[in-house]
Protein backbone atom coordinates (compact mmCIF):
# COMPACT_ATOMS: atom_id res chain seq x y z
CA UNK A 1 0.00 0.00 0.00
CA UNK A 2 1.29 3.46 -0.89
CA UNK A 3 1.36 5.82 2.05
CA UNK A 4 0.89 9.57 1.70
CA UNK A 5 4.56 9.98 2.57
CA UNK A 6 5.70 7.54 -0.16
CA UNK A 7 3.49 9.18 -2.72
CA UNK A 8 4.65 12.71 -1.95
CA UNK A 9 8.30 11.65 -1.70
CA UNK A 10 8.17 10.76 -5.39
CA UNK A 11 7.24 14.37 -6.07
CA UNK A 12 10.26 15.65 -4.15
CA UNK A 13 12.58 13.36 -6.12
CA UNK A 14 11.08 14.46 -9.43
CA UNK A 15 11.49 18.12 -8.45
CA UNK A 16 15.17 17.51 -7.57
CA UNK A 17 15.81 16.07 -11.02
CA UNK A 18 13.98 18.78 -12.88
CA UNK A 19 15.65 21.47 -10.77
CA UNK A 20 19.09 20.13 -11.78
CA UNK A 21 18.12 20.22 -15.44
CA UNK A 22 16.87 23.79 -15.17
CA UNK A 23 19.98 24.93 -13.32
CA UNK A 24 22.41 23.12 -15.61
CA UNK A 25 20.82 24.79 -18.63
CA UNK A 26 21.76 28.29 -17.41
CA UNK A 27 23.36 30.22 -20.27
CA UNK A 28 21.61 28.15 -22.93
CA UNK A 29 18.48 30.28 -22.52
CA UNK A 30 15.95 28.63 -24.83
CA UNK A 31 16.73 25.30 -23.18
CA UNK A 32 16.78 26.90 -19.72
CA UNK A 33 13.35 28.45 -20.19
CA UNK A 34 11.96 25.11 -21.30
CA UNK A 35 13.54 23.18 -18.43
CA UNK A 36 12.49 25.83 -15.93
CA UNK A 37 8.93 25.64 -17.25
CA UNK A 38 8.76 21.89 -16.64
CA UNK A 39 10.35 22.20 -13.21
CA UNK A 40 8.00 25.01 -12.28
CA UNK A 41 4.87 23.14 -13.38
CA UNK A 42 5.91 20.06 -11.45
CA UNK A 43 6.78 21.99 -8.30
CA UNK A 44 3.55 24.00 -8.41
CA UNK A 45 1.55 20.82 -8.97
CA UNK A 46 3.19 19.25 -5.93
CA UNK A 47 2.44 22.35 -3.87
CA UNK A 48 -1.17 22.28 -5.11
CA UNK A 49 -1.58 18.71 -3.84
CA UNK A 50 -0.49 19.87 -0.42
CA UNK A 51 -2.39 23.13 -0.27
CA UNK A 52 -5.60 21.93 -1.88
CA UNK A 53 -5.84 18.39 -0.54
CA UNK A 54 -3.46 17.39 2.24
CA UNK A 55 -3.22 20.51 4.39
CA UNK A 56 -6.98 21.20 4.46
CA UNK A 57 -7.59 17.56 5.43
CA UNK A 58 -4.94 17.82 8.14
CA UNK A 59 -6.34 21.11 9.43
CA UNK A 60 -9.89 19.67 9.52
CA UNK A 61 -8.88 16.54 11.36
CA UNK A 62 -6.39 18.03 13.79
CA UNK A 63 -7.92 21.48 14.28
CA UNK A 64 -4.42 22.95 13.80
CA UNK A 65 -4.92 25.72 11.27
CA UNK A 66 -3.84 29.09 12.68
CA UNK A 67 -0.14 29.13 13.53
CA UNK A 68 0.05 25.37 13.01
CA UNK A 69 2.73 23.51 11.10
CA UNK A 70 0.81 23.61 7.80
CA UNK A 71 0.77 27.39 7.99
CA UNK A 72 4.59 27.46 8.15
CA UNK A 73 4.74 25.10 5.19
CA UNK A 74 2.38 27.36 3.23
CA UNK A 75 4.59 30.36 4.00
CA UNK A 76 7.63 28.48 2.67
CA UNK A 77 5.69 27.55 -0.48
CA UNK A 78 5.10 31.26 -0.94
CA UNK A 79 8.85 31.87 -0.71
CA UNK A 80 9.44 29.16 -3.32
CA UNK A 81 6.93 30.72 -5.70
CA UNK A 82 8.74 34.06 -5.36
CA UNK A 83 12.08 32.40 -6.15
CA UNK A 84 10.61 30.59 -9.16
CA UNK A 85 9.48 34.00 -10.41
CA UNK A 86 12.98 35.40 -9.88
CA UNK A 87 14.45 32.51 -11.88
CA UNK A 88 11.95 33.08 -14.69
CA UNK A 89 12.70 36.83 -14.74
CA UNK A 90 16.43 36.19 -14.84
CA UNK A 91 16.03 33.62 -17.64
CA UNK A 92 14.03 36.13 -19.68
CA UNK A 93 16.72 38.76 -19.06
CA UNK A 94 19.48 36.21 -19.83
CA UNK A 95 21.07 37.17 -16.49
CA UNK A 96 23.09 34.11 -15.54
CA UNK A 97 24.29 35.42 -12.19
CA UNK A 98 20.82 36.24 -10.97
CA UNK A 99 19.42 33.00 -12.37
CA UNK A 100 21.99 30.85 -10.55
CA UNK A 101 21.66 32.90 -7.37
CA UNK A 102 17.89 32.44 -7.28
CA UNK A 103 18.33 28.76 -8.15
CA UNK A 104 20.80 28.17 -5.34
CA UNK A 105 18.54 29.97 -2.87
CA UNK A 106 15.52 27.97 -4.03
CA UNK A 107 17.37 24.67 -3.71
CA UNK A 108 18.45 25.39 -0.13
CA UNK A 109 14.97 26.46 0.85
CA UNK A 110 13.31 23.58 -0.96
CA UNK A 111 15.56 20.94 0.57
CA UNK A 112 15.20 21.99 4.18
CA UNK A 113 11.47 22.34 3.55
CA UNK A 114 11.27 18.82 2.06
CA UNK A 115 13.16 17.40 5.00
CA UNK A 116 10.67 18.91 7.44
CA UNK A 117 7.75 17.62 5.39
CA UNK A 118 9.18 14.13 5.06
CA UNK A 119 10.17 13.70 8.68
CA UNK A 120 7.23 15.50 10.31
CA UNK A 121 4.50 16.93 8.16
CA UNK A 122 3.59 13.83 6.15
CA UNK A 123 3.59 11.50 9.17
CA UNK A 124 1.34 14.01 10.97
CA UNK A 125 -1.00 14.22 7.97
CA UNK A 126 -1.08 10.43 7.79
CA UNK A 127 -1.90 10.13 11.47
CA UNK A 128 -4.64 12.75 11.13
CA UNK A 129 -6.07 11.26 7.94
CA UNK A 130 -6.40 7.75 9.31
CA UNK A 131 -8.64 5.73 7.00
CA UNK A 132 -9.03 8.67 4.59
CA UNK A 133 -5.42 8.31 3.40
CA UNK A 134 -6.29 6.43 0.20
CA UNK A 135 -8.97 8.91 -0.67
CA UNK A 136 -6.50 11.80 -0.24
CA UNK A 137 -3.91 10.10 -2.45
CA UNK A 138 -6.60 9.65 -5.11
CA UNK A 139 -7.39 13.37 -4.91
CA UNK A 140 -3.66 14.17 -5.31
CA UNK A 141 -3.51 11.92 -8.37
CA UNK A 142 -6.44 13.82 -9.81
CA UNK A 143 -4.39 17.03 -9.57
CA UNK A 144 -1.54 15.27 -11.37
CA UNK A 145 -3.92 14.26 -14.17
CA UNK A 146 -5.42 17.74 -14.26
CA UNK A 147 -2.01 19.22 -15.12
CA UNK A 148 -1.30 16.31 -17.44
CA UNK A 149 -4.24 17.41 -19.57
CA UNK A 150 -2.59 20.75 -20.30
CA UNK A 151 1.05 19.76 -20.22
CA UNK A 152 2.98 18.15 -23.05
CA UNK A 153 6.21 17.31 -21.27
CA UNK A 154 7.55 13.76 -21.28
CA UNK A 155 6.79 13.26 -17.60
CA UNK A 156 3.10 13.99 -17.96
CA UNK A 157 2.96 12.25 -21.31
CA UNK A 158 4.15 9.17 -19.43
CA UNK A 159 1.74 9.76 -16.55
CA UNK A 160 -1.28 9.59 -18.82
CA UNK A 161 -0.02 6.65 -20.85
Amino acid at each position, binding site marked *: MTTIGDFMLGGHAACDDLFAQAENAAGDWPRAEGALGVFRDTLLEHIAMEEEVLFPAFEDESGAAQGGPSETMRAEHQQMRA*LLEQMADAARAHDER*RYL*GAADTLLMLMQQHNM*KEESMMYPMIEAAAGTRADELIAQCRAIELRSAGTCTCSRHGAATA
Partner: protein
Amino acid sequence: MGPRQLDLAQAPPISVPLRFFLTAPLFAIAAAGVVAFHGGAMFASRFMPATLAATHLLALGCLSMTMAGALMQIVPVLAGAPIARPRMIAGIVHPALTLGSLMLAAAFLAGAERLFVAAAVLLGVAFAVLIAAVVHAMLRARAKDRTARALHLAMAALGVTVVLGAGLGLRRVFGAALPIASLADLHPAWALFGWVGLLIAAVAERVVPMFQLTPAYPSWLVRRFGFAVLGGLLVWTVARQAAVPLIGDIAAGALAMLYVAFALVTLRLQRRRRRRRIDVNVLFWRLGMVLAIAAALAFATAATGVLPARAVLVVGVLAIVGAALSLVNGMLYRIVPFIAWFHLYTLAGASPGMPNVKDYLTESRQRAQFALHAAAVVLLVAALVLPDVAARIAALAFMTSALAWQANLVAIVRVYRQRARALASAQPAQG
Protein backbone atom coordinates in the same frame (compact mmCIF):
# COMPACT_ATOMS: atom_id res chain seq x y z
CA MET B 1 -2.70 15.24 17.83
CA GLY B 2 -2.77 15.99 21.55
CA PRO B 3 -0.03 18.03 23.14
CA ARG B 4 2.59 17.35 20.48
CA GLN B 5 3.28 20.95 19.61
CA LEU B 6 5.46 21.24 16.59
CA ASP B 7 6.74 24.52 15.38
CA LEU B 8 8.02 24.01 11.89
CA ALA B 9 9.37 27.55 11.62
CA GLN B 10 12.01 26.50 14.12
CA ALA B 11 14.81 28.80 13.11
CA PRO B 12 16.52 30.29 16.17
CA PRO B 13 17.16 34.06 16.21
CA ILE B 14 19.96 34.85 13.78
CA SER B 15 22.26 36.08 16.54
CA VAL B 16 22.29 32.57 18.02
CA PRO B 17 24.26 30.76 15.28
CA LEU B 18 26.12 33.85 14.04
CA ARG B 19 27.95 34.48 17.29
CA PHE B 20 29.52 31.01 17.04
CA PHE B 21 30.31 31.31 13.33
CA LEU B 22 31.95 34.71 13.66
CA THR B 23 34.05 33.61 16.64
CA ALA B 24 35.44 30.43 15.05
CA PRO B 25 37.87 32.04 12.57
CA LEU B 26 39.29 34.22 15.35
CA PHE B 27 40.52 31.07 17.07
CA ALA B 28 42.12 29.86 13.85
CA ILE B 29 43.90 33.22 13.69
CA ALA B 30 45.01 32.79 17.31
CA ALA B 31 46.27 29.26 16.64
CA ALA B 32 48.26 30.52 13.65
CA GLY B 33 49.64 33.23 15.91
CA VAL B 34 50.90 30.64 18.38
CA VAL B 35 52.65 28.75 15.56
CA ALA B 36 54.14 31.97 14.17
CA PHE B 37 55.44 32.94 17.61
CA HIS B 38 56.92 29.57 18.57
CA GLY B 39 58.09 28.47 15.14
CA GLY B 40 59.63 25.13 14.32
CA ALA B 41 60.35 24.11 17.93
CA MET B 42 56.71 23.24 18.52
CA PHE B 43 56.79 20.63 15.77
CA ALA B 44 59.06 18.39 17.87
CA SER B 45 56.10 16.50 19.38
CA ARG B 46 52.40 16.88 20.00
CA PHE B 47 53.09 17.34 23.72
CA MET B 48 54.98 20.62 23.39
CA PRO B 49 53.05 23.27 25.35
CA ALA B 50 52.63 25.53 22.31
CA THR B 51 51.50 22.57 20.20
CA LEU B 52 48.87 21.62 22.76
CA ALA B 53 47.75 25.25 22.94
CA ALA B 54 47.40 25.61 19.16
CA THR B 55 45.66 22.23 18.86
CA HIS B 56 43.05 23.17 21.45
CA LEU B 57 42.53 26.65 20.05
CA LEU B 58 41.59 24.92 16.81
CA ALA B 59 39.71 21.90 18.15
CA LEU B 60 37.70 23.84 20.73
CA GLY B 61 37.60 27.48 19.75
CA CYS B 62 37.30 26.92 16.03
CA LEU B 63 35.84 23.46 15.27
CA SER B 64 33.69 22.80 18.33
CA MET B 65 32.59 26.44 18.22
CA THR B 66 31.28 26.09 14.66
CA MET B 67 29.71 22.75 15.43
CA ALA B 68 27.88 24.16 18.44
CA GLY B 69 26.49 26.97 16.29
CA ALA B 70 25.58 24.58 13.49
CA LEU B 71 23.79 22.28 15.94
CA MET B 72 21.70 25.20 17.22
CA GLN B 73 20.69 25.83 13.62
CA ILE B 74 20.26 22.34 12.18
CA VAL B 75 18.92 20.23 15.04
CA PRO B 76 15.52 21.95 14.72
CA VAL B 77 15.36 21.01 11.04
CA LEU B 78 16.87 17.55 11.41
CA ALA B 79 15.05 16.52 14.55
CA GLY B 80 11.88 18.47 14.02
CA ALA B 81 11.98 20.31 17.32
CA PRO B 82 13.55 23.63 18.15
CA ILE B 83 16.18 23.74 20.84
CA ALA B 84 14.38 25.15 23.86
CA ARG B 85 15.44 28.67 24.91
CA PRO B 86 18.07 29.04 22.18
CA ARG B 87 19.15 32.51 23.33
CA MET B 88 19.80 31.29 26.83
CA ILE B 89 21.62 28.15 25.67
CA ALA B 90 23.78 30.18 23.27
CA GLY B 91 24.26 32.77 26.01
CA ILE B 92 25.87 30.09 28.19
CA VAL B 93 27.62 27.86 25.66
CA HIS B 94 29.23 30.60 23.58
CA PRO B 95 30.99 32.59 26.32
CA ALA B 96 31.89 29.44 28.28
CA LEU B 97 33.40 27.80 25.19
CA THR B 98 35.19 30.99 24.19
CA LEU B 99 36.68 31.68 27.60
CA GLY B 100 37.34 28.02 28.31
CA SER B 101 39.26 27.58 25.05
CA LEU B 102 41.31 30.70 25.69
CA MET B 103 42.09 29.68 29.26
CA LEU B 104 43.08 26.18 28.27
CA ALA B 105 45.46 27.53 25.64
CA ALA B 106 46.86 30.02 28.15
CA ALA B 107 47.21 27.23 30.71
CA PHE B 108 49.28 25.14 28.31
CA LEU B 109 51.44 28.09 27.32
CA ALA B 110 51.99 29.33 30.87
CA GLY B 111 51.89 25.93 32.58
CA ALA B 112 49.53 27.56 35.08
CA GLU B 113 47.54 25.05 37.12
CA ARG B 114 44.78 27.40 38.20
CA LEU B 115 44.04 28.16 34.59
CA PHE B 116 43.59 24.47 33.89
CA VAL B 117 40.98 24.26 36.63
CA ALA B 118 39.13 27.34 35.36
CA ALA B 119 39.27 26.05 31.79
CA ALA B 120 37.96 22.65 32.85
CA VAL B 121 35.01 24.20 34.67
CA LEU B 122 34.11 26.50 31.76
CA LEU B 123 34.48 23.81 29.08
CA GLY B 124 32.61 21.31 31.23
CA VAL B 125 29.71 23.76 31.54
CA ALA B 126 29.77 24.61 27.82
CA PHE B 127 29.66 21.01 26.64
CA ALA B 128 27.28 19.76 29.32
CA VAL B 129 24.77 22.47 28.41
CA LEU B 130 25.23 21.86 24.68
CA ILE B 131 24.79 18.09 24.99
CA ALA B 132 21.78 18.50 27.27
CA ALA B 133 20.10 21.01 24.93
CA VAL B 134 20.62 18.89 21.82
CA VAL B 135 19.59 15.61 23.43
CA HIS B 136 16.58 17.26 25.07
CA ALA B 137 15.36 18.64 21.73
CA MET B 138 15.71 15.27 20.06
CA LEU B 139 14.02 13.32 22.84
CA ARG B 140 11.16 15.81 22.98
CA ALA B 141 10.67 15.50 19.24
CA ARG B 142 10.88 11.72 19.60
CA ALA B 143 12.94 11.90 16.48
CA LYS B 144 14.01 8.36 15.74
CA ASP B 145 15.37 8.59 12.26
CA ARG B 146 18.92 7.80 11.23
CA THR B 147 20.16 11.36 11.66
CA ALA B 148 18.78 11.63 15.18
CA ARG B 149 20.54 8.38 16.04
CA ALA B 150 23.79 9.58 14.49
CA LEU B 151 23.58 12.84 16.45
CA HIS B 152 23.04 10.92 19.69
CA LEU B 153 26.19 8.90 18.96
CA ALA B 154 28.19 12.06 18.22
CA MET B 155 26.95 13.57 21.49
CA ALA B 156 28.00 10.40 23.35
CA ALA B 157 31.47 10.62 21.81
CA LEU B 158 31.67 14.28 22.80
CA GLY B 159 30.79 13.31 26.35
CA VAL B 160 33.55 10.68 26.44
CA THR B 161 36.02 13.19 24.96
CA VAL B 162 35.21 15.77 27.62
CA VAL B 163 35.53 13.22 30.44
CA LEU B 164 38.88 11.97 29.08
CA GLY B 165 40.05 15.56 28.73
CA ALA B 166 39.02 16.29 32.30
CA GLY B 167 40.95 13.18 33.33
CA LEU B 168 44.06 14.55 31.65
CA GLY B 169 43.52 17.84 33.47
CA LEU B 170 43.14 16.12 36.83
CA ARG B 171 46.31 14.15 36.29
CA ARG B 172 48.19 17.25 35.29
CA VAL B 173 47.03 19.54 38.07
CA PHE B 174 46.69 17.17 40.97
CA GLY B 175 49.05 14.43 39.82
CA ALA B 176 46.10 12.07 40.19
CA ALA B 177 47.05 8.49 39.36
CA LEU B 178 44.14 7.52 37.15
CA PRO B 179 43.52 3.88 36.31
CA ILE B 180 43.37 4.67 32.59
CA ALA B 181 46.32 3.95 30.37
CA SER B 182 47.16 6.10 27.39
CA LEU B 183 44.69 8.89 28.19
CA ALA B 184 46.70 11.17 25.97
CA ASP B 185 46.01 8.89 23.00
CA LEU B 186 42.40 8.12 23.83
CA HIS B 187 41.31 11.75 24.27
CA PRO B 188 42.27 12.98 20.79
CA ALA B 189 41.03 9.77 19.13
CA TRP B 190 37.57 10.12 20.72
CA ALA B 191 37.59 13.82 19.87
CA LEU B 192 38.46 13.43 16.19
CA PHE B 193 37.09 10.02 15.23
CA GLY B 194 34.17 10.25 17.65
CA TRP B 195 32.80 13.74 18.15
CA VAL B 196 34.07 15.63 15.12
CA GLY B 197 34.03 12.74 12.65
CA LEU B 198 30.62 11.37 13.59
CA LEU B 199 28.99 14.79 13.51
CA ILE B 200 30.48 15.59 10.10
CA ALA B 201 29.43 12.17 8.78
CA ALA B 202 25.88 12.61 10.12
CA VAL B 203 25.59 16.01 8.47
CA ALA B 204 27.29 14.87 5.24
CA GLU B 205 24.88 11.98 4.85
CA ARG B 206 22.02 14.50 4.73
CA VAL B 207 23.51 17.56 3.04
CA VAL B 208 25.62 15.98 0.27
CA PRO B 209 22.66 14.30 -1.48
CA MET B 210 20.37 17.24 -0.69
CA PHE B 211 22.44 20.19 -1.81
CA GLN B 212 24.64 18.66 -4.46
CA LEU B 213 21.86 16.41 -5.79
CA THR B 214 23.88 13.22 -5.64
CA PRO B 215 22.49 9.72 -5.17
CA ALA B 216 21.88 8.77 -1.53
CA TYR B 217 24.61 7.18 0.59
CA PRO B 218 24.38 3.38 0.55
CA SER B 219 22.14 2.19 3.36
CA TRP B 220 24.71 -0.22 4.83
CA LEU B 221 27.00 2.73 5.46
CA VAL B 222 24.25 4.95 6.85
CA ARG B 223 22.93 2.32 9.23
CA ARG B 224 26.23 0.97 10.51
CA PHE B 225 28.77 3.76 10.32
CA GLY B 226 28.09 5.45 13.67
CA PHE B 227 27.80 2.24 15.66
CA ALA B 228 30.84 0.74 13.93
CA VAL B 229 32.96 3.82 14.72
CA LEU B 230 31.89 3.88 18.37
CA GLY B 231 32.45 0.12 18.56
CA GLY B 232 35.91 0.51 17.07
CA LEU B 233 36.76 3.28 19.52
CA LEU B 234 35.52 1.18 22.45
CA VAL B 235 37.49 -1.91 21.40
CA TRP B 236 40.57 0.21 20.81
CA THR B 237 40.14 1.85 24.22
CA VAL B 238 39.73 -1.47 26.03
CA ALA B 239 42.65 -3.00 24.13
CA ARG B 240 44.88 -0.08 25.09
CA GLN B 241 43.71 -0.36 28.68
CA ALA B 242 44.25 -4.13 28.79
CA ALA B 243 47.55 -3.79 26.90
CA VAL B 244 46.61 -6.14 24.08
CA PRO B 245 48.42 -4.40 21.23
CA LEU B 246 47.28 -6.77 18.49
CA ILE B 247 43.58 -6.14 19.13
CA GLY B 248 44.32 -2.43 19.49
CA ASP B 249 46.05 -2.32 16.12
CA ILE B 250 43.20 -4.18 14.46
CA ALA B 251 40.65 -1.80 15.98
CA ALA B 252 42.67 1.24 14.91
CA GLY B 253 42.94 -0.18 11.40
CA ALA B 254 39.21 -0.83 11.30
CA LEU B 255 38.47 2.72 12.47
CA ALA B 256 40.72 4.12 9.78
CA MET B 257 39.08 1.94 7.12
CA LEU B 258 35.62 3.13 8.17
CA TYR B 259 36.60 6.73 7.57
CA VAL B 260 38.41 5.88 4.34
CA ALA B 261 35.24 4.13 3.16
CA PHE B 262 33.04 7.07 4.13
CA ALA B 263 35.31 9.54 2.36
CA LEU B 264 35.62 7.38 -0.78
CA VAL B 265 31.85 6.93 -0.96
CA THR B 266 31.40 10.69 -0.56
CA LEU B 267 33.87 11.46 -3.34
CA ARG B 268 32.21 8.91 -5.58
CA LEU B 269 28.74 10.30 -4.92
CA GLN B 270 30.00 13.79 -5.66
CA ARG B 271 31.33 12.64 -9.01
CA ARG B 272 27.77 11.56 -9.82
CA ARG B 273 26.19 14.86 -8.81
CA ARG B 274 23.36 16.09 -11.01
CA ARG B 275 24.23 19.77 -10.50
CA ARG B 276 26.97 20.33 -13.01
CA ARG B 277 28.50 23.53 -11.68
CA ILE B 278 31.54 23.15 -9.43
CA ASP B 279 31.25 25.77 -6.71
CA VAL B 280 33.65 26.49 -3.87
CA ASN B 281 31.66 24.28 -1.56
CA VAL B 282 32.45 21.24 -3.72
CA LEU B 283 36.14 22.15 -3.73
CA PHE B 284 36.20 22.29 0.08
CA TRP B 285 34.41 18.93 0.23
CA ARG B 286 36.89 17.28 -2.11
CA LEU B 287 39.90 18.65 -0.27
CA GLY B 288 38.40 17.68 3.09
CA MET B 289 37.60 14.14 2.00
CA VAL B 290 40.99 13.50 0.41
CA LEU B 291 42.70 14.76 3.57
CA ALA B 292 40.34 12.69 5.76
CA ILE B 293 41.59 9.60 3.93
CA ALA B 294 45.19 10.71 4.51
CA ALA B 295 44.45 11.42 8.18
CA ALA B 296 42.81 8.03 8.71
CA LEU B 297 45.75 6.18 7.15
CA ALA B 298 48.21 8.24 9.20
CA PHE B 299 46.24 7.42 12.35
CA ALA B 300 46.28 3.68 11.66
CA THR B 301 50.03 3.86 11.14
CA ALA B 302 50.62 6.04 14.20
CA ALA B 303 48.47 3.79 16.41
CA THR B 304 50.84 0.90 15.87
CA GLY B 305 53.52 2.96 17.58
CA VAL B 306 56.04 2.68 14.76
CA LEU B 307 56.14 6.41 14.01
CA PRO B 308 58.54 8.81 15.73
CA ALA B 309 56.94 11.45 17.97
CA ARG B 310 57.22 14.15 15.35
CA ALA B 311 55.50 12.09 12.67
CA VAL B 312 52.47 11.49 14.90
CA LEU B 313 51.71 15.20 14.56
CA VAL B 314 50.79 14.59 10.96
CA VAL B 315 47.57 12.92 12.12
CA GLY B 316 46.50 16.09 13.90
CA VAL B 317 47.44 18.43 11.07
CA LEU B 318 45.64 16.29 8.48
CA ALA B 319 42.56 15.59 10.57
CA ILE B 320 42.07 19.02 12.18
CA VAL B 321 43.29 21.57 9.66
CA GLY B 322 43.07 19.31 6.62
CA ALA B 323 39.80 17.40 6.92
CA ALA B 324 37.62 19.00 9.59
CA LEU B 325 38.51 22.65 9.04
CA SER B 326 38.15 22.35 5.25
CA LEU B 327 34.63 21.01 5.62
CA VAL B 328 33.63 23.50 8.31
CA ASN B 329 35.12 26.41 6.38
CA GLY B 330 33.29 25.46 3.18
CA MET B 331 30.03 24.70 4.96
CA LEU B 332 29.84 28.16 6.51
CA TYR B 333 29.88 29.69 3.03
CA ARG B 334 26.58 27.95 2.46
CA ILE B 335 24.97 28.21 5.88
CA VAL B 336 25.68 31.86 6.71
CA PRO B 337 24.28 33.40 3.47
CA PHE B 338 21.26 31.11 3.68
CA ILE B 339 20.33 32.06 7.22
CA ALA B 340 20.92 35.71 6.36
CA TRP B 341 18.61 35.33 3.35
CA PHE B 342 16.05 33.42 5.39
CA HIS B 343 15.88 36.03 8.15
CA LEU B 344 15.73 38.93 5.70
CA TYR B 345 12.92 37.23 3.86
CA THR B 346 11.08 36.73 7.11
CA LEU B 347 11.47 40.46 7.79
CA ALA B 348 10.55 41.72 4.35
CA GLY B 349 9.16 39.09 2.04
CA ALA B 350 10.35 38.96 -1.54
CA SER B 351 10.87 42.64 -2.13
CA PRO B 352 12.59 43.54 -5.38
CA GLY B 353 16.34 43.80 -5.15
CA MET B 354 16.49 41.42 -2.20
CA PRO B 355 19.90 39.71 -2.30
CA ASN B 356 19.85 36.00 -3.07
CA VAL B 357 22.32 33.65 -1.37
CA LYS B 358 24.99 34.29 -4.00
CA ASP B 359 24.76 38.08 -3.64
CA TYR B 360 26.25 38.10 -0.14
CA LEU B 361 29.79 37.18 -1.11
CA THR B 362 31.40 36.87 -4.51
CA GLU B 363 32.49 33.46 -5.67
CA SER B 364 35.97 34.85 -6.40
CA ARG B 365 36.50 35.86 -2.76
CA GLN B 366 35.50 32.40 -1.65
CA ARG B 367 37.80 30.80 -4.21
CA ALA B 368 40.71 32.98 -3.14
CA GLN B 369 40.24 31.92 0.46
CA PHE B 370 39.98 28.28 -0.59
CA ALA B 371 43.35 28.61 -2.34
CA LEU B 372 44.87 30.19 0.77
CA HIS B 373 43.48 27.42 2.94
CA ALA B 374 44.78 24.66 0.66
CA ALA B 375 48.21 26.32 0.56
CA ALA B 376 48.23 26.55 4.36
CA VAL B 377 47.50 22.83 4.71
CA VAL B 378 50.33 21.93 2.31
CA LEU B 379 52.76 24.25 4.12
CA LEU B 380 51.77 22.89 7.55
CA VAL B 381 52.51 19.35 6.36
CA ALA B 382 55.81 20.61 4.93
CA ALA B 383 56.58 22.19 8.30
CA LEU B 384 56.42 18.73 9.88
CA VAL B 385 59.29 17.68 7.64
CA LEU B 386 61.25 20.93 7.64
CA PRO B 387 60.11 22.73 10.81
CA ASP B 388 62.88 25.30 10.87
CA VAL B 389 62.31 26.39 7.30
CA ALA B 390 58.57 26.07 6.87
CA ALA B 391 56.91 26.52 10.27
CA ARG B 392 56.66 30.31 10.23
CA ILE B 393 55.77 30.45 6.54
CA ALA B 394 53.04 27.89 7.18
CA ALA B 395 51.82 29.92 10.16
CA LEU B 396 51.63 33.08 8.06
CA ALA B 397 49.78 31.27 5.28
CA PHE B 398 47.33 29.79 7.77
CA MET B 399 46.83 33.16 9.43
CA THR B 400 46.20 34.83 6.08
CA SER B 401 43.64 32.19 5.21
CA ALA B 402 41.89 32.52 8.58
CA LEU B 403 41.86 36.32 8.30
CA ALA B 404 40.33 36.07 4.82
CA TRP B 405 37.77 33.58 6.13
CA GLN B 406 36.83 35.95 8.95
CA ALA B 407 36.66 38.93 6.57
CA ASN B 408 34.42 36.96 4.21
CA LEU B 409 32.02 35.98 6.97
CA VAL B 410 31.94 39.53 8.27
CA ALA B 411 31.19 40.76 4.74
CA ILE B 412 28.17 38.44 4.53
CA VAL B 413 26.87 39.60 7.89
CA ARG B 414 27.43 43.23 6.91
CA VAL B 415 25.18 42.87 3.87
CA TYR B 416 22.55 41.32 6.10
CA ARG B 417 22.81 44.08 8.73
CA GLN B 418 22.59 46.89 6.16
CA ARG B 419 19.48 45.38 4.67
CA ALA B 420 17.89 44.60 7.99
CA ARG B 421 18.55 48.14 9.20
CA ALA B 422 17.09 49.63 6.01
CA LEU B 423 14.01 47.49 6.46
CA ALA B 424 13.66 48.45 10.10
CA SER B 425 13.79 52.16 9.30
CA ALA B 426 11.30 51.69 6.46
CA GLN B 427 8.85 49.94 8.78
CA PRO B 428 9.33 51.61 12.15
CA ALA B 429 6.35 49.80 13.66
CA GLN B 430 8.03 46.46 13.09
CA GLY B 431 10.94 47.48 15.34
